[in-house]
């Protein structure tokens, strides 16, 4: 049984040193040993093998972000099913009902975004999400933003 | 109405009831509001008169004591009672409130219900301070007084009312939060020594503090009281507040509110902290501060161009006499101080009422604007003369009785104190007589003063009781001395006992 702090954390320290050393080594080695070739094709951005065109600063629909965020949310929530799967045999019905509650909650969320139209891809002619909140709250005189910015 | 068992509660809360009624009256009917307010003030005065009938001058200790638990977990009680000192102040408060409400009849026009409500609330607050036997209750009322006074000055005051109201509030608030710490130290000391949590003043007297701690507590409480008195150098809020307040506000402020400070010394500092109070260093500092207040107040009064401000600064000087009397720590000094509290209430109250009467007619208080007023207002001039002489301490009027007794007391301790205080009286006579000369006597030079009308019936009703009281106390002060005798003896007894105790312990 390691007693002192250093002894206990020695493996961690060792790993940190190793990781650092390997990283430095590999990057250093490739910098020193590697052959450098520059041409137009190599310097373009990588885009799935296609030839890139246009500017990268192009605007595109907010729907992409929305869907991406929703995907991440539901995806992460699904991860909880894995640890559950490991132990549900021990926990029996309790685990079943707990996971049922969890899934119902996720379904409620899904139902909500569905009804709100967040998944409606055919944008404009349908209702925008939470369109009621789209009121012009910007006052005609542009005072407020100055007010907010003078900080503490 | 049977008030037998709860007389003091009735006295305390009648103004509050009156306030509720005043607020309930439709505010559009100003006439009705005025009548209701006057009746409410009259009612609370009549209720307090029962005390006159039933108060036993010869009994020691507190009378009509009522006690009920208020906040059990903190040991806070609603406990009220009255002894000779507070008895006089209670009567003074109810009487002066009645007179100031009556005096406001034609002065105030705006937001009448709120105005009268504030005056009545102020009355309850002040009465609460004088009646409380529980230190916490005392503090609650002490702080509660701030609010109505703040509004009285701030809404119905003169031109610089905002500044005055704010200054008044902040000064007193700062003083009283420090006082709160002193209270808490005593509270915990009692809890530690006796295992009982209580704020009862009578119980807190048992606390034995090391002298250093006692001195600290003394100074903490001192700050609260001294701001209210006000003692030099905490007096600067007073002239502003007085000058800007409406007449009724000034009367209440000078007449009774300032007495809360001196009452605090008498009721709390001396009995609760007898060792610190008799500490020669502390006594000297306080005596010197009192003497400075006496002389400085008088000198500054001499220089005033504003009628009301002059009276205000004279209060600083007169309150200096009272604190000097208290810290003479002998029977004469204390008796004089208690009596002078009442006298100052009567004479300064009268002076402020008179200033208010003239201000209402002319809307100015510049002394230079007046002169020869006696030609147009002979009755007013007579009453003013009486008020002035009573304030200046002329024999046969009330002011003399108090000041003379205080000087006797001070002389016993240190002849120099008396010697230094006497010029205060002389200066007092000087500034008042000079004021009289500049305003009442001489030729009627200012055209605007030609239209002045003399006192009307209501104004007579306001000033006469105070004039009568001034004469009565001046000619036959014996009943007053009798009332004060017991409580003063009790304070002296308390001081002596600790002195003996100290002597036994020390050698």
């Amino acid at each position, binding site marked *: 049984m390691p007693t002192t*702090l250093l002894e206990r954390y020695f493996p961690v320290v060792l790993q940190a040193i190793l990781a650092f050393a390997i990283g430095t080594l590999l990057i250093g080695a490739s910098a020193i040993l590697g052959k450098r070739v520059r041409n137009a094709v190599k310097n373009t951005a990588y885009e799935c093998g296609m030839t890139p065109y246009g500017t990268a600063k192009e605007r595109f629909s907010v729907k992409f972000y929305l869907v991406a965020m929703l995907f991440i949310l539901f995806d992460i929530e699904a991860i909880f099913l894995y640890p559950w799967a490991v*132990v549900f045999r*021990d*926990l029996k019905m*309790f685990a079943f009902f707990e996971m049922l509650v969890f899934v119902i*909650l996720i379904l*409620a*969320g899904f*139902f*909500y975004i*569905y*009804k*709100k139209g967040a998944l409606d891809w055919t944008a404009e002619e349908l209702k925008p999400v*939470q*369109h*009621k*909140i*789209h*009121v*012009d*709250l*910007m*006052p005609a005189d542009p005072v*407020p*933003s100055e*007010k*907010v*910015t003078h*900080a*503490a | 109405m049977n008030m037998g068992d709860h007389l003091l509660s009735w006295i305390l809360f009648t103004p509050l009831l009156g306030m509720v009624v005043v607020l309930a009256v439709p505010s559009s009917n100003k006439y009705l509001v005025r009548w209701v307010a006057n009746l409410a003030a009259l009612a609370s005065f009549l209720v307090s008169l029962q005390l006159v009938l039933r108060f036993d001058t010869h009994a020691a200790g507190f009378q009509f004591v009522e006690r009920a638990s*208020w*906040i*059990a*977990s*903190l040991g806070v009680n609603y406990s009220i009672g009255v002894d000779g000192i507070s008895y006089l102040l209670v009567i003074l408060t109810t009487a002066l409130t009645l007179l100031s409400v009556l005096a406001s009849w034609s002065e105030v026009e705006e*937001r009448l219900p709120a105005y009268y409500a504030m005056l009545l609330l102020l009355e309850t607050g002040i009465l609460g301070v004088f009646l409380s036997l529980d230190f916490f209750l005392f503090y*609650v009322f002490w*702080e*509660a007084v*701030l*609010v109505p006074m*703040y*509004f009285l000055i*701030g*809404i119905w005051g003169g031109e610089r*009312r*905002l500044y005055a*109201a*704010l200054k008044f*509030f*902040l000064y007193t*608030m700062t003083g009283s*939060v*420090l006082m*709160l*710490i002193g209270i*808490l*130290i005593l*509270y*915990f000391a009692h809890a530690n020594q006796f295992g009982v949590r209580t704020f009862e003043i009578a119980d807190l007297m048992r606390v034995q503090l090391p002298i250093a701690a006692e001195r600290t507590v003394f100074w903490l409480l001192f700050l609260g009281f001294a701001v209210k008195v006000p003692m030099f150098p905490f007096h600067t809020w007073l002239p502003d507040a007085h000058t800007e307040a409406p007449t009724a506000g000034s009367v209440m402020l000078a007449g009774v509110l300032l007495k809360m400070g001196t009452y605090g010394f008498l009721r709390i500092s001396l009995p609760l902290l007898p060792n610190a109070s008799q500490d020669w260093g502390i006594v000297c500092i306080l005596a010197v501060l009192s003497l400075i207040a006496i002389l400085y107040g008088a000198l500054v009064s001499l220089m005033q161009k504003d009628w009301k401000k002059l009276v205000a600064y004279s209060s600083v000087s007169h309150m200096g006499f009272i604190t000097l009397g208290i810290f003479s720590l002998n029977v004469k000094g204390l008796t004089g101080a208690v009596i002078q509290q009442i006298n100052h209430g009567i004479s300064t109250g009268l002076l402020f009422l008179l200033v208010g009467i003239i201000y209402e007619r002319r809307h100015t208080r510049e002394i230079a604007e007046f002169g020869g007023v006696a030609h147009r207002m002979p009755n007013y001039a007579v009453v003013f003369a009486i008020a002035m002489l009573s304030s200046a301490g002329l024999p046969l009027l009330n002011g003399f009785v108090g000041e003379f007794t205080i000087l006797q007391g001070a002389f016993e301790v240190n002849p120099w104190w008396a010697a230094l205080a006497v010029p205060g009286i002389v200066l007092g006579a000087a500034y008042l007589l000079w004021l009289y000369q500049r305003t009442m006597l001489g030729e009627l030079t200012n055209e605007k003063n030609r239209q002045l009308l003399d006192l009307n019936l209501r104004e007579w009703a306001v000033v006469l009781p105070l004039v009568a009281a001034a004469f009565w106390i001046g000619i036959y002060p014996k009943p007053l001395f009798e009332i004060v005798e017991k409580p003063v003896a009790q304070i002296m007894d308390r001081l002596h006992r600790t002195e003996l105790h100290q002597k036994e312990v020390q050698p």
Partner: protein
Amino acid sequence: MPANFMPSAAEYFRFAPEIILTIVGTLVMILEAMTGDRDKSSLGYVSLLGLAAAMAAAVAANNDPGLAFQSMIIVDGFATFFRVLVLGVGMLTILVSTNYLSEAKANSGDFYALILFSVVGQSLMACANELIMIFIGIEISSIASYILAGYLRDDRRNNESALKYFLMGSFATAFLLYGVAWIYGLTGSTNLGEIRTVLSHGTAPTAMVGISAALMLVGLAFKVSAAPFQVWAPDVYQGSSAPISAFMSAGPKAAAFAVMVRVFYTSFDSISNQWEPVFWIMSLATMVIGNFAALQQRNIKRMLAYSSIAHAGYVMVAVTSHSAVGTAAVMFYLASYCLMNIGAFAVVTWMARDGEKFVEVDDFSGLAQKQPFVTAILTVLILSLVGVPLTGGFFGKFLVFKAAIDSHLMWLAILGLLNSAVAAYYYLRVLVVMYFREPGASTVNLPPVAGTLRVAMLVTTLGTIALGIFPGLILGFATQSSTLGK
């Protein structure tokens, strides 16, 4: 795997308030999605009912105090007190918001659902007995609050406020989580009681325990806006809608103080000599910064924000005193603070109008002549914030400084009380403006006070007065519960 893993009915019963709130919150969310474009005030009432039911459940749960779910949850008087408090804050917030939202044409069920979820988090913080639960509670409460701060999403101020709140808030929670990780590493437990036991053996390296306590303190100090982590509060309170500022200044703060007291009084009890001086300095700094910065403010929301920082400082004084008396003072103070602060913000909500056009102190000019009812309400609340006797604020301050003196923190008490005298200055300015100035452009065409708002104003004001006259109402309970069920 423990044999008795299946929780008993009693355990669910102890956790009923959170369960009820979650169900009602989800229900409100679904109803919102199903009901289309109508004005959703009715969902506000549903949420009110849900909160009331949860409050009843919280009170009922206190009849059978104890632990639940492997000691992750604790129900004692302390937890019940704060549960009821945050639930009450939620109810008042809904009452304050309904009319405001209708006027901004943003009255939707989302808002109420978010309030309910945020309250779930705070309620969980109140009864958490374990660091992970505390963290989850804080996160649930915060994430909902971040969204609420930017709820009117076309309002630039709302956006700025939400972004600031979110960035700083997540940073602070990261610190908290880092502290939790350290303490788990040091003691092998996240249960507050077990940590206390391990730490009292004194085997864990003191310096490292101190660091982990400090990291957690950073996170909590941020939530209660204690100096030096108070910078966000004025900007966020000013930028958010007034009802949300009311909510954020009350509920999350109270819950975070509950956590602070529980964690530091239970787990870090044995290293109190380390954290007490830190708390001493922090409480003083918080009071001073809050009060002196408030002196300068012209915007009433900003002023109330700084004042709420100052009030956090007073509560910190009570926490610093580290005693049962101090705990009771924290509880009482927060109850009265929530009442008066929400009340004051309710008045601001009513006054602001038209996308919050009138939020300067000067906009209250002459209100006394135009709207005596609201003036009277605000007067009482301001006097309570000043700490004038016969109001809840007075007893709060009294108890706080009493606790400080009881623990021999004489200088802290003196400096704190002087601070409260300074505070009188800026509070009184509001009264000055209301009573002593002539009505201006902002006080003509005043809207009527909507029914729900009126209820909120009356409840807060009467509550403040009731606490001032009969502090025994909750002081007795607070004193009994101040031992934290240890």
